[in-house]
């Protein structure tokens, strides 16, 4: 079991969460070329090692999180709210 330390709820089993995917994708502007959109939607770095990825606390607070996790050892280095402004709120509440 992977334990994810949700900034809102505390440390929980990963079975409470749903895996999203690569958190580093930057979607291009609406008038960008098909090539750029294809790259953003379909192509992935598929990192072997630490990566930033999104998880949804679907059976908890239902917030989206950015987790830095190793895809080899499953060790987690950091967990943050997806939205930067919510990150500030989380820090102020500590």
């Amino acid at each position, binding site marked *: *079991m*992977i334990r994810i330390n949700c900034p809102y709820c505390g440390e929980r*089993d*990963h*079975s409470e969460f*749903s*895996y999203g*995917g690569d958190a580093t994708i930057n979607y291009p502007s609406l008038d960008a070329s*098909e*090539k750029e959109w*294809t*790259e953003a*939607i*379909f*192509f*992935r*770095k*598929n990192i*072997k090692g630490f*990566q930033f*990825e999104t998880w949804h606390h679907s059976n908890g607070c239902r917030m989206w999180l950015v987790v830095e996790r190793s*895809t*080899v*050892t*499953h060790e987690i280095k950091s967990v943050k709210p997806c939205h930067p402004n919510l990150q500030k709120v989380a820090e102020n509440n500590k």
Partner: protein
Amino acid sequence: MTKFNAWNVIKNGLNGQSYWTRQWRDPEPKSIYDVVIIGGGLHGLATAYYLAKNHNIKNVAVLEKGWIGGGNAGRNTTIVRSNYMMPGNHEFYEHSLKLWENLSHELNYNVMFSQRAHVSLFHSPGAKDSVSRIYNIMRLHGTDAELWDLKTLKKKIPHLNYHNSRFPILGAAVQKRAGNARHDAVAWGYARAADTLGVDILQNCEVTGFTRKNGNIESIQTSRGIIKGKKIGFAVAGNTSVLWQMAELGNLPIESHKLQAFVSEAVKPLLDQVVVYGVGGAHFYISQSDKGSMVFGGDLDWYKSYAQRGNLPMVQDVAEAAMAIFPSLGRIRLLRHWAGVMDMTMDGSFFICKTPISNLYLNAGWNYGGFKASPASGWYFADLIANESPHNYVQNHNLERFEKGINIDERGAGPDPKLHG
């Protein structure tokens, strides 16, 4: 290499089994090959075999970082079927099934292919309509497919849970020519047959880098020295992205996920078919091995991973699905479970294609379905490497299909790799 036949079995039986020769050589790497296949799994070994057999290209090496058949070849539930409906896919998998039917004779190696029928249960009128459509498409293309009503199903498999009120069994979609095979024998059979035709199988030979020259890959750095190949093929599903980035080719429409499988203790004959159960998010498939063990599996672990070990929530999911459909398994003990790393692609279909490097060819993206595909995968990958253009069946199984909008999405699940189960 001593051929397996009745005469040799009797002769060796009388001589204390002392006249058998090695199954394949353990050669030192040559400095240059016509074709180097990276990956000594079923797909790589099959490719080498068909290069030598169908295309007379015999100066071939297969590079394997561990031992052959030690990756996903040994980490699957050995199911062989061809119940696909998308153009390209159904022809490809049907050809694969036909190759399976003659594989033991072809390789002079008993791969224990058992056409015991693949029985896919349905639990609602909607599911019946949906699966009928797929199985009708299969029949239109000459593949065997049939529907069993409840009466037939109860006669064939009397011990399923027919009293499940939440998901009542209404019948099953069946492919009788489908079944399973012995995974190790397939790897060894292809290795032995390829070796006999002159292919060098280089084990403990890990690729560590590539040297590029004039846009091509000139040589491969390995743990056993520098090896040159006029043409190079990748067949390393699970780790494709790692090699792809080693060759500085950027991103791929692939995520690596892990899929678990389970083996129980051996029991007396209990199940004659491969049974598949999939409702309400659960996904479960089970068969009985020739030794008597129940072999079964379920979904991915739902998060990206390169770890060849499974996680516990999926063990629970699979056990729950087993109990829902096969309550008689309740007291059976689990012997082993393991996970393999899958190339999950953005549309659930594979890649047999050229790459941006002119002497590099790609075989990847096998999702859940690599085992059954291995003979045809080798066949068409060898064809691509030898003829330098893809066969009609795999003409759209390339990396450009996403930009062109011709995704081959059997499930209609969209660009989320983990959903293409």
